[in-house]
């Protein structure tokens, strides 16, 4: 297996809508039971903003976070495939790769982007 220790997971979390595909996809490929997964989705808010406007009223985001079970699907990467969560995310809000490349990509993605280095 190749060395993926410099790889990370990018989350463009302004788009995460908590569809659950990352969680269930991970459980399926790693054969994990309900309640255990290599990725978990947290909810921030919803808080109504101060001085809100009609088109900017809520502070409310879902934020996926890899757990200790995440190995970025190293076996799939070896086969030239994407991690399960990245491939199946319904909003395409996930990406993977060497962290320095992800950092460069994040510059173009605007607000609300996180990069995780699970390993």
């Amino acid at each position, binding site marked *: 297996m190749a060395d993926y220790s410099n790889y990370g997971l990018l989350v463009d979390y302004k*788009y995460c809508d908590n569809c659950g*595909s990352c969680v*269930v*996809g991970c459980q399926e490929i790693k054969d994990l*039971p309900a309640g255990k997964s290599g990725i978990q989705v947290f909810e921030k808010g919803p808080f109504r903003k101060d001085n809100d406007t009609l088109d900017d009223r809520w502070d*409310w985001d879902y934020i996926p976070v890899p757990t200790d079970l995440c190995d970025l699907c190293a076996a799939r990467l070896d086969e030239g495939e994407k991690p399960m969560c990245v491939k199946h995310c319904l*909003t395409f809000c996930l990406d993977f790769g060497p962290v320095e490349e992800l950092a460069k990509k994040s510059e173009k993605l605007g607000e609300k982007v996180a990069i995780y280095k699970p390993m």
Partner: protein
Amino acid sequence: MDKQFDHEWQTPQPDGSTIFRTCAWSPPGDHPVGCGVELYVKDGKLIRVEGDETNPITQGRLCPRCLALKDYTYDPKRIIYPMKRDPEKRGDANAWERITWDEAYDLIKAWVDDIEKKYGREAIVVFGGTGREACMFYYPMAFSVLNTPNLCYAQSGWSCYGPRSSVADYILGAGYPELDTGYFPDRFDNPNYELTKVVVEWGKMPLWSNGDGFFGHSLIDMMKRGTKFIVVDPRVTWLGARKGNMTLQLKPGTDASLALGILNVIINEDLYDHDFVENWCYGFDELAERVNEYPLELVEKQTWVPAEEIRAAARIMATNHPMCIQWGLAIDQNKNGVQAGHAILSIMAITGNIDVPGGLTVGDPAVRLGHWCTDSRQYLSDEMWEKRIGVGKWPAFAATMASTHPDETLETLETGEPYAVKMAWINSSNFLSATCSMQNQRWYKALLPMEHTVATDLFMNPTIEALADLFLPMTTYAEHDGFVIPYYMSNNVWLGCMAKAFSTGETKSDLEICYEVGRRVTPKANWSKYNNVHEWLDEQLDDEPLLPFTFDEFKEMGVYFPPMTYRKYEKGMLRNDGQPGFNTVTGKFELYSVLYDAWGEDPMPYFEEPNYTQVSQPQLAEKYPLMATSGARVSAFFHSEQRQIPRLRALNPDPLVEINPKTAEKYGIEDGDWVQVYNMFGKGNWRAKVTPTIDERTVHCQHGWWFPEEDGSAPNLYGVFKSNFNLLLPHYNVGNLGFGTPAKGIMVNMRKVSSLDDQNESNFKQIPPTLVESHGWIKDAETAREILE
């Protein structure tokens, strides 16, 4: 022909497995979305599910329900052999015995012959659910297989898709119109496509519902390209809460008032498309007059939406082009919904957004794949067709719906008038759960006396456990061949192919069951002429000049986009006579409906306060001070399905009621507490989710709940009446054309309880007889008092 896509549909792998490409419809349930799936099959078993990145719409993405297909396929609770049960033991979960298909066919043949001899075939009613592939086969199952005119979608007022389709038919002369998300092989990049600037989600949340075949997450693709959203919903949704998007948080059931208020602004501020109105609309002057009855101060009072927000939204909708409104189930589940739908389509028309790039697509009548539904009627005589239950009373309904009237069907079942029903066929439906029928315990009691009841499904459900004598096991979408037809043939903007990848047990598809039963019980119909279902599939394509391929060729392609022509009304492509215009009585888009006028309905949209609100029933306002809405979809489940799949259930373990923090505090309720929601019709328990995204005056109860882990035998029936919103809804609260139900808005109260099982009184709540007599209608204060006593 040039192929749009050229895939291998089977790719052998070095480890001995094979990858099968297919498009998903159902089961497991979803609408005809056709998501691209790669199924890894080894030794005849599904070992892995991946998304198909070559699918031009879904591009590899899959929702949790498809990702968990392996769990669903091999769940120990799945039924993979036919079973029968003594009719005396209906409701006994332990009384089923395995039989062969031949025994099942013999039983069906004997039962149908017996019913025909004693009562005639019209004594059979076929029940079907919503959205799944089964809903395109319950038409032939009734008409050409069992040869009865009575097919019933048991939702009060046919309140899912039927009303919207009918409104589109009456005033636009076309099938279900839908937001254009670039229905070309190169999608958004096609030079003929134009990105929608503003999309309005009106009583709809496609991210989870994927309504009628629209891939909901196309909206995210559009949002990333710059589309803005206006969401009309009693709940602030995640989509409506994104920066740049907005939410009009209305009182449930007041959509028609809001739409008329928006029309008022667009017309009186002269923001409408004069060219389209002058050339292609009928009745503009009458509409301009009507909207003046809806000044924004009044609309704000009726809808709770601040006047300045309505004005701002109306201006955005009128001045951004293309703009498109996606109308949702909230329009159907409303007895004033025909008017709301009419007003919403009128906004689309007068802003010039009908059948334009990025606007509202209008179905091309030249692509008819799926026409087997209505064609199967040819095997019923006119005399037999006239016997369809309840349609004599509802001519507008009968003109567009090839089914019984659902509310009349319940009354026929209960009274035996105009004739007795003696056999039921439950075609993949679970209407005792809170999915469609209102006052489900009445349906339960009315169907118990059937002489014979047959059911098709993949898992046991409360409805089948309660009522059926014969269980026919079904295939998943991965285990049979078929077509994915968005909008059920009324707007074939793209088409998908379902290709069988493997088999499980002795399961069969809807088509296979129609074929096998049809040739046995109704030899005069078409089923006898085919040697196998493949011939039937090929015949469907033979009939389509614009679909020049065989079924096997379609398997290789996976997805197909028929030719897309915009502004078909200018080109004579919509009317039967080939003239330009719309296929309506006047040839125009009817802001004033000539048909409504003929049917005795107001030809123009109007607002009517729902019958069960604090405004309509002031004498009950104190007792039931909140409005409850229901039916918002979630990612984990398709209506009442998937509660038994652990990985999916874990995403939403309990039935939830959303309550605003201020309201929760007033009632002493905390997040996670069990709460009983109740009104004059019934009650149920939900678990509190305290959230500021719902209005203080509104609560939202999840629908479709039952508990496969509980005792299945009657009276518990997997706890189906413990958390069942439809028990809180009246039977037969329909509008003047026969459509609608107050499922999206009804007055309630709530109290804290200790658990799901803390029901305070017997689950099986009897409906007060006065309500039954009055169709669930509280006519006056005196009746109200009687009910409350």
